[in-house]
């Protein structure tokens, strides 16, 4: 019997192990897929064996295959089997597989609860250790609920190794099972003063993460962290604490003020760049939160900016990057301090490192002035041409538009220049719709609001419509962005058609534009854009009609447009169809009226001989004909008369209410309340507060009460917490050096 079992094991001695598998895959480079399928079949057979040794080996191989992209969830049950092996060697393989492949949707997880609990309570340190580590990767709500106590117990294990892991794991437990936080918190706080630095570090880590999510609740721990900050020599711990303070500062400005000095000292004394950087970051956060007390902290701002300048000038690209990152934060509240380093930042725009260029770009907002805007934009456009990555190019475009349009175009001195910039940007190949839309919006915005630039803008748009290189073959695939700009171009030409009229400087561009707007490619544009094209053709036409004096010409114009519009009448897009059909009908009526008027004019001319006595009458008929035509033209253009002005978003509020209108009064009688003994009659009064219910306030005070009692729980036993005191607490007495 024993020999048979030995035989069985020996049979499987020749199973491939992990190394064999890897070697095999490397030797089958051309037929990798097929080879791996065979191996998976072998693994499936191995998993049918009774021996845990064999199964563990199989699972070890599966973990490797998972890394190559193969789903191994079908082996979930076997993984659990291997996890339950009494030997660490195999157990750890099972746990590794679990941490790599188990997730919320894995149903075998519910089979693991007891075996994990057994391992957590094992006398073998590493059994517990591997269980803790692995569990951190697949903690579910149920597991958190069932194992919270076991993990909490481990927080006070005699072995620091297990305490450390248990503390860190509690964070996952808290996330999945929030009710576990309250009972565990006391113990967690104790761990902040654990003799083992690793455990202490883990506790700091967990509390910092908790505080990030809910800063308010951890404000009371600030003094404790202050103490830690001044006594710890572990840079990781210091960094976490300082970052934590950064999150607490917005809630408690006094904390910020107290931190400036110790942080400044750290900045001067530390040689660890990572710590230095975090100190600077937090000092910046303090300065932002107390920006009202600017005068007192001018030196701190100076110190930060000075240190950041050193970082940015460093040859180490990492420091440069982080320096720029921190500068971006200062920019919001102290733009002048950043502007002093304009040259340095402009240099960074030329850096070969894209990450650094992107950082420098985001600083540009604060750098720009009326004098340097054009220079900066020119530089950015050059960058756009050289840019390799689409992401960077898109960033550049957004930035160009951003800095130009910020503060209502405050820094633009020449709008014609800006329109040309936009046109230049629109010509870029491979532009995405979002970018095209941004450009289009700018063109529209500028054309509407800046009257003086309309002539230039309209002419530019006309040129664009006539000369652009929309790729008809590819259906505009490479010019998705350009399509959006065409939308703006068509609208501007239609709305400001009058600007396209001939004058001393240029020819009349209206007819040419009109023709360009009904070229065959337009039918391939998206519906919304086509609709605009159709509608604005009519606007342009109306303008032309008004300007044209010759009757025959007018009729010709009308019939021409009628023909061109026919291609849109059968469009699949409903909006296009509707507009085209409406326009078509309108034009038909106009054409009819024009023809009649023209005919009566002609008749009047030819009738002169017959109606000799009615000289006046003949010329009246002619005059009548002209008058009719004029009136038709005027009415038509009346459809599009009136300037569209941009309206401020808050304008509605400024509109005075007409007399006697009460917006809060009920329009109809309220319905009769349902007849029930439990319902109180609903009292309504007309007037301002009629609709507002009182109930929500009760709910609000309930939750405040709950969290208040929760808060006292955490800080009740601690006499050092005199934080809320009016005097600023017993803080003054402590030394921080």
């Amino acid at each position: 019997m024993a020999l048979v079992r030995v035989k069985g094991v020996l049979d499987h001695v020749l199973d491939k192990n992990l190394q064999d598998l890897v070697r095999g895959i490397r030797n089958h480079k051309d037929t990798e897929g097929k080879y791996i399928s065979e191996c998976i079949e072998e693994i499936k057979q191995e998993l049918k064996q009774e021996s845990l040794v064999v199964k563990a080996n199989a699972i070890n191989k599966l973990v490797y295959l998972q890394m190559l992209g193969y789903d191994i969830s079908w082996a979930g049950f076997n993984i659990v089997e291997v996890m339950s092996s009494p030997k660490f060697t195999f157990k750890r393989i099972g746990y590794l597989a679990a941490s790599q492949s188990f997730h919320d949707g894995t149903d075998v997880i519910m089979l693991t609860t007891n075996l994990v609990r057994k391992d957590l309570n094992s006398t073998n340190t590493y059994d517990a250790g591997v269980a803790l580590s692995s569990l951190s990767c697949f903690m579910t709500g149920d597991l958190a609920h069932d194992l919270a106590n076991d993990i909490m117990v481990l927080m006070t294990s005699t072995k620091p190794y297990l305490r450390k892991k248990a503390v860190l794991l509690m964070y996952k437990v808290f996330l999945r099972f929030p009710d576990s936080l309250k009972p565990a918190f006391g113990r967690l706080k104790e761990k902040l003063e654990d003799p083992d630095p690793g455990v202490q570090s883990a506790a700091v880590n967990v509390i910092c993460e908790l505080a990030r999510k809910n800063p308010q609740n951890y404000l009371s721990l600030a003094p404790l962290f202050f103490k830690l900050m001044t006594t710890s020599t572990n840079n990781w711990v210091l960094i976490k604490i300082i970052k934590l303070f950064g999150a607490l500062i917005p809630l408690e400005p006094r904390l910020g003020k107290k931190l400036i000095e110790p942080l400044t000292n750290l900045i001067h004394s530390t040689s660890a760049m990572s710590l230095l950087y975090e100190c600077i970051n937090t000092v910046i956060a303090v300065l932002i939160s107390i920006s009202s007390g600017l005068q007192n902290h001018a030196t701190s701002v100076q110190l930060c900016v000075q240190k950041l300048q050193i970082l940015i000038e460093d040859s180490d690209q990492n420091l440069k990057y982080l320096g720029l990152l921190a500068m971006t934060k200062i920019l919001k509240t102290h733009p002048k301090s950043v502007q002093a380093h304009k040259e340095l930042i402009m240099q960074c725009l030329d850096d070969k490192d894209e990450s650094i260029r992107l950082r420098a770009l985001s600083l540009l907002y604060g750098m720009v002035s009326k004098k340097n805007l054009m220079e900066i934009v020119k530089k950015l456009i050059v960058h756009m041409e050289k840019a390799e990555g689409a992401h960077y190019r898109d960033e550049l475009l957004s930035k160009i538009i951003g800095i130009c349009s910020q503060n209502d175009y405050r820094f633009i001195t020449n709008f014609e220049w800006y329109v040309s910039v936009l046109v230049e940007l629109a010509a870029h190949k491979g532009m995405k719709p979002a970018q095209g839309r941004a450009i289009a919006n700018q063109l529209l915005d500028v054309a509407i609001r800046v009257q003086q630039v309309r002539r230039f803008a309209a002419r530019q748009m006309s040129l664009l419509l006539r000369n652009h290189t929309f790729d008809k073959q590819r259906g505009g695939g490479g010019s998705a962005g350009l399509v959006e700009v065409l939308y703006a171009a068509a609208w501007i030409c239609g709305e400001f058609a009058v600007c396209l009229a001939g004058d001393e400087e240029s020819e009349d561009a209206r007819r040419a534009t009109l023709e360009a707007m009904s070229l065959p490619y337009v039918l391939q544009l998206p519906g919304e854009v086509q609709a605009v094209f159709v509608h604005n053709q009519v606007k342009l036409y109306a303008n032309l009609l008004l300007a044209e004096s010759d009757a025959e010409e007018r009729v010709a114009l009308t019939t021409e447009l009628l023909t061109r519009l026919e291609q849109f009448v059968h469009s699949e897009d409903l909006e296009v169809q509707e507009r085209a059909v409406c326009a078509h009908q309108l034009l038909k009526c106009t054409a009819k009226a024009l023809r009649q008027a023209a005919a009566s004019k002609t008749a009047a001319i030819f009738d002169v001989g017959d109606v000799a006595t009615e000289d006046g009458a003949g010329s009246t008929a002619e005059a009548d004909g002209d008058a009719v035509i004029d009136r038709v033209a005027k009415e038509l253009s009346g459809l599009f008369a009136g300037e569209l002005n941009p309206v401020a978003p808050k304008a509605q509020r400024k509109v005075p209410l007409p007399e006697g209108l009460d917006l809060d009064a009920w329009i109809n009688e309220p319905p009769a309340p349902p007849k029930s003994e439990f319902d109180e009659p609903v009292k309504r009064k007309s007037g301002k507060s009629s609709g507002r219910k009182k109930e929500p306030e009760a709910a609000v005070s309930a939750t405040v009460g709950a969290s208040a009692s929760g808060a006292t729980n955490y800080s009740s036993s601690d006499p050092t917490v005199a934080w809320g005191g009016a005097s600023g607490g017993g803080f003054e007495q402590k030394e921080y050096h």
Partner: protein
Amino acid sequence: ALSEPLKAMIKAILIFNNHGKPRLTKFYMHYAEDEQQQVIRETFQLVSKRDDNVCNFLEGGTLIGGQDYRLIYRHYATLYFVFCVDSSESELGILDLIQVFVETLDKCFENVCELDLIFHMDRVHCILNELVMGGMVLETNMNEIVARFEEQQKLQKSESGFSAMPNRAVSTVRDMNLSQKLRDIKIPDMPSFSSLYQ
């Protein structure tokens, strides 16, 4: 809060070579296998275009895509070590951590090279588990990590009997064509005890 996705501080740790072949992948948030492979490919694309003397921080990519995350990476010989982290981590601190990870690998494997990672991925995971747990930094002291790893290796060796033979023994056995010999063994009949006490 229960339905809130687990936002890890470290979202993923990837090791891949200069051709993009993965050598270790650890995701601390759930991604299906095909998504994982896409992330690996995309990260490789982003990282491999970088010169050797630019900064070690990257923006842009699916792993990141507008959220709070950043890619922090280091290039050692033929391998890229990439950590995807959120803003709760100190960027320079993570760079140091990667260095600790690599030095630890070096100590545990004795002058570690890519082949070590290729053939002993499970051991690399064992080491990593002492460094980072569930996306949070667990230990930063190299000696402590090495000590824990070596104790676990020792434990496994002490458990090994017949079933955990070292590789050389296995290959020796393989060369003996043992399976054929086993099939040829004639097991003699054992005497039955009952006959002795008749």
